[in-house]
């Protein structure tokens, strides 16, 4: 009886027996963090959330013709792209601005497309055009009412981008301002956050990637792209270089790039993705 009893006791967790099995299987699979199928080359890209969707689309196309390659695209900002490509966490980095001299010492940038940054307003805002000086006044709170720049009598709500975004850097570079000079009413992160801030408060002024703004405006979002320094922001004016606020969309590599990654980089800079670039409302590199 005693023996029988002990066996019973040990195995009497019938309630949870299935659960233990599951748990066991789980810990086993956890322990075996082994590499997956051999022979498959993985390329990792991290960086700019502006560039990531384009590269993801291009990667999908590339994988179709190269079945032995797997491409992981993670966004997280240009700075992350630079850091990861430099440290080797990622094979390639995505950066939505030109590299600084310091950065260019260790990394090599390959331009895959160009983008412009444009100022946006609500569709109902009568202002249609703003020049550089007016923008400087607005972003430093010298102009606080729309009437001073030719609009209705309403306060100007200034939307600025958060620290570190390359749109911010490009825009401030154009205005010749330091971020510490900017007096914003609202600080936002993503492009669509800017656009929706303008939609939800018609007194807001903001700036975003032309691609995003054009695409949203075309689909009925009540915003408009503001004429800056007399030039209408569009893919054409970015392409011919007349629009004043532009930036390159780059993919960067360090000195030790694998052959597979180099091949993919080659693909990204080739005309084979031009249709994708245009679909994302960016301007292809000639």
């Amino acid at each position: 009886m005693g023996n029988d009893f002990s066996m019973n006791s040990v195995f009497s967790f019938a309630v949870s027996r299935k659960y233990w099995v599951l748990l066991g299987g789980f810990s086993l699979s956890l322990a075996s963090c082994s590499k997956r199928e051999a022979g498959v080359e993985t390329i990792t890209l991290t960086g700019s959330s502006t560039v990531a969707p384009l590269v993801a689309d291009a990667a999908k196309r590339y994988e179709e013709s190269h079945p032995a390659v797997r491409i992981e695209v993670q966004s997280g900002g240009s700075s992350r792209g630079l850091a990861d490509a430099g440290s080797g966490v990622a094979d390639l980095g995505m950066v939505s601005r030109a590299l600084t001299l310091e950065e260019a010492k260790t990394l090599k940038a390959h331009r895959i497309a160009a983008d412009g940054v444009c100022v946006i307003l609500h569709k109902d805002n009568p202002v249609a055009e703003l020049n550089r000086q007016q923008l400087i006044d607005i972003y430093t709170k010298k102009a606080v009412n729309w009437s001073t720049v030719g609009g209705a009598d309403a306060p100007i709500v200034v939307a600025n981008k958060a620290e570190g975004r390359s749109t911010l850097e490009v825009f401030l570079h154009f205005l010749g301002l330091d971020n510490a000079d900017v007096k914003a009413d609202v600080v936002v992160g993503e492009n669509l956050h800017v656009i929706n801030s303008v939609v939800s408060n018609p007194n807001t002024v903001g700036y975003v990637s032309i691609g995003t703004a054009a695409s949203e405006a075309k689909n009925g979002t009540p915003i408009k792209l503001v004429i800056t320094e007399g030039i209408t922001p569009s893919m054409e004016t970015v392409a011919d270089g007349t629009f004043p606020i532009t930036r390159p969309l780059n993919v960067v590599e360090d000195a030790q790039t694998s052959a597979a990654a180099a091949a993919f980089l080659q693909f990204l800079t080739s005309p084979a993705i031009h249709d994708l670039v245009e679909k994302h409302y960016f301007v292809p590199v000639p």
Partner: protein
Amino acid sequence: MSFSADSSTRTATRSGWADRAFGFAGGAAAFLTAGLFGWIVWDLIRLGWPHLSWSFFTGEVEDAGRQGGVGPLLISSVLILVCCLVPAVPLGVGCALWLSECVRRGSLTARLVTGGVDLLASVPSIVFGLFGMVFFCQKLGMGFSILSGGLTLAGMILPILVRTTLTALESLPADLRPAAAALGLTRTTSIVRILLPAAMPGIVVGVTLGIGRALSETAALLFTSGYSVRWPESIHDSGRALSVHIYDLALNVANGGPMASSTALVLLALILIINAAAVMLSERWMRRRYHPEA
């Protein structure tokens, strides 16, 4: 442990204006809650319903989510949930059992553990995400994977599970424990065979809440489970959760708004189904084994 209405209190003596004022204020609050949520859900339906179709549930993500469906993401979400619950439920329930059955409530160790769990509840989800990225993805070498995401979420829902299980155990009739002891049952038997089944309804509520929390989480997954929209082949693959997809569509993809709403509807449906399944399974299991109808 039935939650059914207590008729004696519902029909209690009404007394004039105070009673009416209470009823009115309560009714207004309930109506406000339901109304606001109705509003949100209605907005989602208005924007998202036109895009819903069978192929949306099964199709792959195309054109950054503006086209196609969310099939792979649905699978990823479920896998992340599994990776989350498998460690979290034993941890949470075990911790609660230990606190309620193995130590004195006021003791230093009990206080330390409860404090730690309460503190865990107050860690911002984005901090969980950063922690998961460094600890699971990098230190433990799991990479951006469904496993990393699930384990990160496990830490996040742990306090919910501990608290609800603890509450359920504490609200059990006090005489169950002496009854079990008097029959010479070991503590193990008493816990596994008697207390745990009796506390089951409460635990299921906790798990339900945890499921909702886990499936809706974005910030913690952004850094851990990754963005990949491929069909996941194992839990070591990177997989984008539905909530991350919603975030991406709403904030990163131009004209992603309507699809974000559709995806949100899919997520709500998934939560409804999983919750209903959890409640139903537990009820059936209880009826079969423990709680024959009264």
